[in-house]
């Protein structure tokens, strides 16, 4: 099987992942959220006292914080949250061997192509189904080098000191309403540690699947990349399409220690009934290099702004974002770079495509604190509108306190140029083919940074999405 077909299962095609699996969860909390639910989750995980307290405190913060009035339309989210299942435990324990995963769950992931992908191109795979990681494995070669790649629960259980030192330090519960919610009910996600000087040259991957109706998924990932280490992590997400809304709110915390390099890739392809409100942030230390590659294609509403806090001298942060909003979707995405140390540099490149009644919004922050001498930041946003019902917005915040800073921001909005179309069509391409080619060219600067298989898939998806868009 050619490699691109292998990866076809990773959630990038036209939405064919809307199927539902008949399963038998071992525990399903009643819908709604209160202290009892939080205690249940904590009890199911046999957590230490401090974590339960952390959760309960976060629940209070969540309840106290008002619903954001900016960004996407959250006016009906309240109802969704009231009816939501906050915790569904699909099986008794996490499996290390694929064969031990319950058949119906295994079938689901096999349909999505996960095990094959692991054998071919990945260093390790985690698969989350509803609220828990059902499978986690790391190739021996990396295990021997001291790489840790566990479910977040096992991270807490097996490496309590390392875990506690960093957990909640990058994204504290009071950061925002949904970070507080995640802190109260988190379940699933990965715990990753890359030891000093180790380079993991093929990606680690986590795959997130929501199956139940009115499900809330709250994965929590903590990644520590030690000095001089180098690694890459990919996450993908899909869910069935229901008529009711589902909810996903992850918190990703990353610590990139001096001179380390890390890349975090998200290919988000949730079904179009999903609210996707995620907080992703990296602390980047001296001379380290962090890169977020954020592809948002699915969901009903995504609000997600991966951040780099550049806290060490010479740190570099990069955010590359592609958003594709088709009918009824709102992709409210972007990135934040905070320069809090000298000689730090950052770059944000955002490309968005709005089709039909889709709306894509770039929202970003570039903040340079006084004392971040010679900080440099550059932001480029390009938006492409495919129909006269499509909409795009650009809301950058540029806050500069340092004289020696150099900051640039540029954004453009356009439709597919008639001249470009004419040129291609005069070469014998149909209007559809020509449009797809122009769109591919438009996202090329970011797509080329994806691992090859993803890039191929992304292009294929764009082509599928473009079908019938002309006329």
């Amino acid at each position, binding site marked *: 099987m050619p490699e691109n077909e292998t990866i076809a299962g990773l959630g990038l095609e036209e939405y064919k992942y809307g199927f539902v699996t008949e399963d038998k969860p071992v525990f399903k909390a009643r819908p709604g959220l209160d202290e009892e639910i939080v205690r249940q989750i904590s009890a199911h995980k046999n957590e230490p006292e401090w974590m339960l307290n952390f959760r309960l405190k976060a629940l209070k913060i969540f309840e106290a914080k008002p619903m954001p009035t900016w960004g996407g339309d959250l006016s009906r989210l309240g109802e969704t949250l009231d009816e939501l299942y906050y915790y569904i435990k699909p099986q008794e324990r996490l499996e290390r061997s694929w064969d031990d995963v319950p058949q119906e769950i295994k079938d689901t992931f096999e349909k999505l192509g996960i095990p094959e992908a692991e054998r071919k191109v990945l260093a390790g795979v985690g698969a989350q189904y509803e609220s828990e990681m059902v499978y986690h494995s790391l190739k021996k070669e990396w295990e021997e080098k001291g790489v840790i790649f566990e479910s977040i629960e096992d991270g807490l259980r097996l490496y309590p000191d390392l875990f506690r030192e960093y957990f909640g330090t990058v994204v504290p519960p009071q950061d925002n309403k949904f970070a507080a919610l995640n802190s109260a009910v988190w379940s699933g996600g990965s715990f990753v540690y890359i030891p000093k000087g180790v380079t993991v040259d093929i990606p680690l991957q986590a795959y997130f699947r929501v199956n139940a109706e009115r499900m809330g998924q709250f994965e929590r990932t903590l990644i520590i990349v030690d000095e001089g280490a180098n690694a890459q992590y990919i996450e993908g997400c899909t869910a069935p399409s229901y008529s009711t809304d589902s909810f996903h709110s992850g918190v990703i915390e990353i610590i990139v220690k001096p001179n380390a390099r890390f890349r975090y890739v998200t290919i988000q392809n949730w079904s179009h009934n999903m609210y996707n409100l995620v907080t992703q942030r990296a602390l980047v230390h001296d001379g380290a290099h962090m890169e977020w590659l954020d592809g948002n294609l699915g969901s009903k509403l995504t609000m997600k702004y991966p951040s780099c806090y550049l806290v060490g001298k010479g740190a570099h942060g990069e955010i590359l974002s592609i958003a594709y909003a088709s009918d009824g979707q709102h992709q409210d995405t972007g990135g934040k770079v905070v320069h809090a140390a000298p000689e730090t540099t950052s770059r944000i490149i955002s490309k968005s495509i709005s089709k039909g009644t889709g709306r894509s919004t770039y929202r970003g922050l570039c903040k340079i604190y006084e004392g971040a001498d010679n900080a440099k930041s550059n932001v480029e946003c390009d*938006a492409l509108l495919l129909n*006269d019902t499509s909409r795009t*917005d650009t809301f950058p915040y*540029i*806050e500069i306190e340092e004289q020696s800073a*150099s*900051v*640039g921001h540029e*954004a453009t*909005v356009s439709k597919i140029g008639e001249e470009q179309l004419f040129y291609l069509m005069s070469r014998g391409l149909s209007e559809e083919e020509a449009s797809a080619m122009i769109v591919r060219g438009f996202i090329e600067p970011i797509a080329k940074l994806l691992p090859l298989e993803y890039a191929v898939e992304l292009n294929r998806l764009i082509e599928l999405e473009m079908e019938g868009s002309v006329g």
Partner: protein
Amino acid sequence: MADVLTAVEGAAAYTKEAVQKRSANEPQWLKSRRAEAWRAWEELPLPTTELEEWRYTEVSRLSWDQVELADPAKNTASADAATGILAGREASARVVQAGASIISIELDEALAKKGVLLLDMSKAADEYGELIEKYLGTQAVPANHSKFSALNGALWTAGIFLYVPRGVRIDAPIRVARYIDQPGLAYMPRTLIVAEDASSFGFVEEMVSPDMEGTTFVNGVVEIIAATSANVQYVAMQQWGKGVKHLSTQRTVAARDANLDSLIVNLGADVARVDLAASLEGPGSRSDMLGLYFAKGNQHFDHNTRQDHRVPHAQSDLLYKGALDDAAHAVFRGIIKVFPKAQRTDAYQTNRNLLLSKDANSTSLPNLEIEADDVRCSHAATVGQLDEEELFYIMSRGIPRNIAERLVVFGFFGEVLERLPMPGVVEELREAIGRKLV
């Protein structure tokens, strides 16, 4: 909400009685227009930093409730100083405000014959009632436009009304000097400009005061309405002295094929807040929106601009450039809004900031909201310091560093000034910037 009410109650200077006193000798239509604005003032909440548009400026910094309302009968200012501002300025007409009232209006005889009106709006409200009633607070800045424009709508004095009839072209600019020298007061100047079809002229408004002990609040409103194919250049040059808190609400409305340009210059005052909205309401209309600011000491400038495209085939192009020294802070927030039907819009927005000192801060928020697909829109914002290479180049010609820095700052502002088609005014601006550059 409780805070808002207390704050408004604290503003003892602004009362319904004061509004009635203002309009005692005015015709009924104007009485009711002021009353309507007063109601809007009472109903609208005081802006807070919770609002995006006021995020970086605490409204209390304007000291709007720390002053008495200026009284045109009592609060005068030096007429010599006021008149002196326009001495030697090339002009086709001159209006001088001293204190809270207009003290003189000169209009070229030939222009008056062509039907050009340049009037003290309160005094002319009877004789030209029908004309002024049609435009004052109706199309550009209606009573409920914003909290402080409503306050102006209720309590304005020193109102200037310019009416240029169809096809009249005026070569030399119309010049206005607004001068105050008594602190502790709230001044509410208002400007209304109506350009009929295919008329063409420039209008330059200068705001000057000495440095003052004690706080002064200036809450102005400017309305500019350009009919089909009119061509209007509006310049506001704000050079208030220390102690002044400046708030100005401005809106320009351009009809089909009209050209309505503005240049907003902020050099003076402790705090200056400008809300400028350009409405492109006719196909083929165009607005060039220029801004220039230079802040030193603890000056705080906040520019809030809008480019509203409601119709197809209109253009707007904004360029705001600012230099910030000492502990100054400048905020630029601009929105290009393209409504669903406004196809073939060309809208651009650029904000560039030069930081001249360690403690200066710059905040830039260039926003786009685009709901039509066949558009060309872009924005750009930069923040940076003086380019060492440029300085080195100049210094290598034997010029000392401090002069070289001045030259680079002049060069930085040059891009804005060269787009202003009024050579005399450009020269005056260069001088004003030069005075500040010492």
